[in-house]
């Protein structure tokens, strides 16, 4: 099988003066499932389209396997059809004047397949995606989820070794989305293709991918496996973007591995053999809501501002150390607004960010002094 890894080297795309993608370096291993994640307008679609060859980068190189498919310097630009990719568009882009069958078969007919082979392939795909009963319908006669599946079938028909997907699930309702996620994960297992998946939904990215590339304002922020992204965000943007409810940020004054605020003093010890390069100054302590433990023996007093019981867990917004924080209590419990509670931050993982640069200083363990 051909090598279906992808490598982007210093890829930049400018539209006039505005920069859509800025010096992006990205290695996508063969057969992996990676997500491009980020807020709207950060350059995800542009990146994907550059890999496909639908958009011409302003600078940089793109390799697919050991083949150089784009180089601004050498003037190489392999057209999309020779890159061995499949592209799933956000709006499906089904051809409205063709039936489901024709939509799926069109690419194969173009490859001069025999009628019988096409029939076989289309039926096989329709079986896989549960479309067999809709073969004679036009796209306008299908529901959003069915159209989605037709688009997937059409893309898979030509057996591309690389599958590029641009927010394919964004138009579906929550339930269908969950189903399709499972479907995609299974497809990845059976096809052995490299999947590059664009989404602005961090849950989706975390749930699906082997690696997440988080972007903001045209710049890649972090490229790491989902759990690493969650546990060790490189800066406050990543920390804030990943996780729901999002991370609590509280400003502290740092002095010799001790942070203080409003009379509360916490010892911060770098974990995993890390070092605190900063000795003193303003820092921000980032604590995941699940690490803010509510307990009667807690060292810090807090007041409930609002409570959202979801059944399996309850999310609390509390006032603590003169700042609003979120915390999660597992189980079916509820709190009154204004109720005085105590929380504990002892021996919990937290992230210490530089107050000015917003970059991660170190992952630390906290201890009440």
């Amino acid at each position, binding site marked *: 099988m051909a090598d279906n890894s992808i490598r982007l080297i210093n890829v930049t795309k400018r539209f006039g003066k505005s920069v859509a993608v800025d010096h992006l370096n990205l290695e996508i291993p063969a057969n992996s499932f990676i997500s491009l994640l980020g807020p709207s307008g950060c350059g995800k679609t542009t990146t994907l389209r550059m890999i496909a060859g639908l958009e011409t980068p302003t600078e940089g190189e793109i390799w697919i396997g050991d083949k150089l498919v784009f180089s601004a310097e050498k003037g190489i630009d392999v057209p999309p059809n020779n890159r061995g990719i499949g592209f799933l568009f956000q709006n499906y882009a089904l051809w*409205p004047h063709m039936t489901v069958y024709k939509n799926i078969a069109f690419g194969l007919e173009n490859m001069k397949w025999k009628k019988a082979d096409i029939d076989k392939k289309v039926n096989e795909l329709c079986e896989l995606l549960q479309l067999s009963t809709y073969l004679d319908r036009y796209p306008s006669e299908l529901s959003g989820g069915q159209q989605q599946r037709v688009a997937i079938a059409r893309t898979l028909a030509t057996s591309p070794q690389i599958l590029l997907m641009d927010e394919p699930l964004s138009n579906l309702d929550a339930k269908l989305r969950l189903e399709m996620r499972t479907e995609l994960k299974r497809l990845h297992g059976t096809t052995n293709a490299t999947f590059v998946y664009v989404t602005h939904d961090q849950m989706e990215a975390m749930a699906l991918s082997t690696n997440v590339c988080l972007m903001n304002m045209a710049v890649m922020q972090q490229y790491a496996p989902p759990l690493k992204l969650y546990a060790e965000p490189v800066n406050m943007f990543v920390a804030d973007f990943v996780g729901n409810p999002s991370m609590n940020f509280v400003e502290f004054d740092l002095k010799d591995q001790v942070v203080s605020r409003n009379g509360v003093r916490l010892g911060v010890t770098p974990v995993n053999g890390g070092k605190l390069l900063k000795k003193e100054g303003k820092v921000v302590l980032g604590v995941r809501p699940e690490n803010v433990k509510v307990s009667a023996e807690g060292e810090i007093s807090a007041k409930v501002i609002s409570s959202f019981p979801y059944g399996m867990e309850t999310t609390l917004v509390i006032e603590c150390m003169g700042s609003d924080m979120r915390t999660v209590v597992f189980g079916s419990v509820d709190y009154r607004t204004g109720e005085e509670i105590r929380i504990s931050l002892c021996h919990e993982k937290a992230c210490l960010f530089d107050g000015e640069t917003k970059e991660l200083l170190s992952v630390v363990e906290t201890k009440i002094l």
Partner: protein
Amino acid sequence: MKVKVRKFINYIRKPQHVILLVLLVCLAYLVVFPLFYIVKDTLIVHTSEVNRVHANAGTLTNYHWAKTFLASDTFATFWQPLLHSLICAVLSCVIAILVGGLFAWLIIRTDMHCKKLCSTLFMFLYIMPGWTLAIAWTNFFKNSLVGGTTGIFEAITRVSTPNWFAYGLFPIVLVTGLHYAPYAYILIGGILKNMDSNLEEAAQILNVSRAGIFVKITIPLVKPAILSTILLVFASGLSVFSTAQFLGLPVNFYTLATKMYSYLNGTNPGRGYVYAVVMMVLSLTILVLNQRMLGTRKSYTTVSGKSSNISLTKLRKGRKIISILVTAFVICVTILPFISFATESLTQVKGDYSLANFTLKYWIAEDAGIGFSGILRNPVFWKALKNTLLLAVCCSLGAGTVGALAGYGIARKWGSKLSTVVNGLTFLPYLIPSIALSAIYLSMFSTRHGIIPALYGTYGMLVLIGVVKYLPMASRSGLNSMFQISATLEESATVMGIPWWKRMCKILIPIQKTSIMSGYLLPFTSCTREMELFVLLYTPNSVLLTTLLFMYNQKGYEQFANAITLLIVILVISLNALINKITGASIDSGIGG
């Protein structure tokens, strides 16, 4: 070096780039270059002017400009025609908007009777060429004061129409205004129809008077439509030619366009080109205004949502009488002209409408008396008909294809410099008045330029100018149709390796067949009724129905002229009906949603 070549190959491999580059070169030659060429033509001595300027043909001279602006008779020969053009433009606007707007309100917002009939007939005014009404007007109201016979009106009432009524400014303005009234009707009607009457009712609840609602709410909402009607009618009114020629010439009433024609056809073409330049400058000024206003227009269109909660104003007691008046008016301006063409073509002695005077000889006689055989036996007529239809087919194929390709290229590269420039160029011919454009081509193609042969007098010349003139129309509809399809529909095929021609034929064109077809059909109908564009360029060999009519009219063979007018109008209207039928029926059920 090698990198540059590779980059160039990559660039040229994309069809949209090739299309845009080819268009850029062609349009630069066919649209931009002529603009400079005509300026040059205002500065040199033409062969027919050698005796007048006392210089050799081809030498530089300021004679034409000096004559136009500095001579003692400059008021009569330049400023007055210019003034006439401006007055025509302004008054035609007023009439078009008043008539069209009132009509739109009556049809869409009141409970008038006979709406369907009125609406259909009213559109005839726009479908029929503008000058047909001018001919009808002379049929009815010509008087004996200006040489020769009287019209139907005088024959019936024995009242002689005054000159100002029969010829000149008044009928020109009326005819031009009426011709464009349907345009105002469509635009204003479109807004009235989409405008939620809640907007008005909200005011009604606040106890605003009816007049207050109309002035404060309805008028501001239709303002954008009114503005764009004004621009179109103003531009057309400025350059009105055939109507002015038919109705103005008998009383020596000149507009810029007719004056230009007389110079170009006379012994001072250089001066005619000066007038053409002036007309173009005026049109360009209007374009700039148009662009300015377009900016503010966008914010308005959001007001007209899709909601169609229309409450009809009750005309109460006036309902009957208004319905009758409106229907009568519409019939007067649409059906009566037909009857007049028919009658005129049947009268043996002009001006005598007694039954005994009727004859079919101008239609079918072997010899109709003036050295011609009847129209239907006249080989020149059949040739003209054949030429017209062939020309229409060629122009529509040419303009439609180029327009669709241009639309594709422009839409795919939307926002890039190349695309913006080409888009502007395809639109430019729209701004050059037909008569000025043909003046330019006349001068440009009368001699050989490098590899491009002298085209004057050939059929190819007519096709070329037709394609250029109708390109704005065709490329607009091409561009619209491409904008309506998301680029991803094509890209998904690109990714699969489907070649460009197949993407066009199997995906883009089938999806947008209706609007692409209209890119072909609009030029077709426009071409069959086009007079001004060809009137300077035709030769006996390439005679067309409209130019034949023009010639007969100028020579006073009114029976022939009317017969041909009748045939042209019937041809145009049936083509139009056919087209409506074709495009209407082709929207099949698979496409939608």
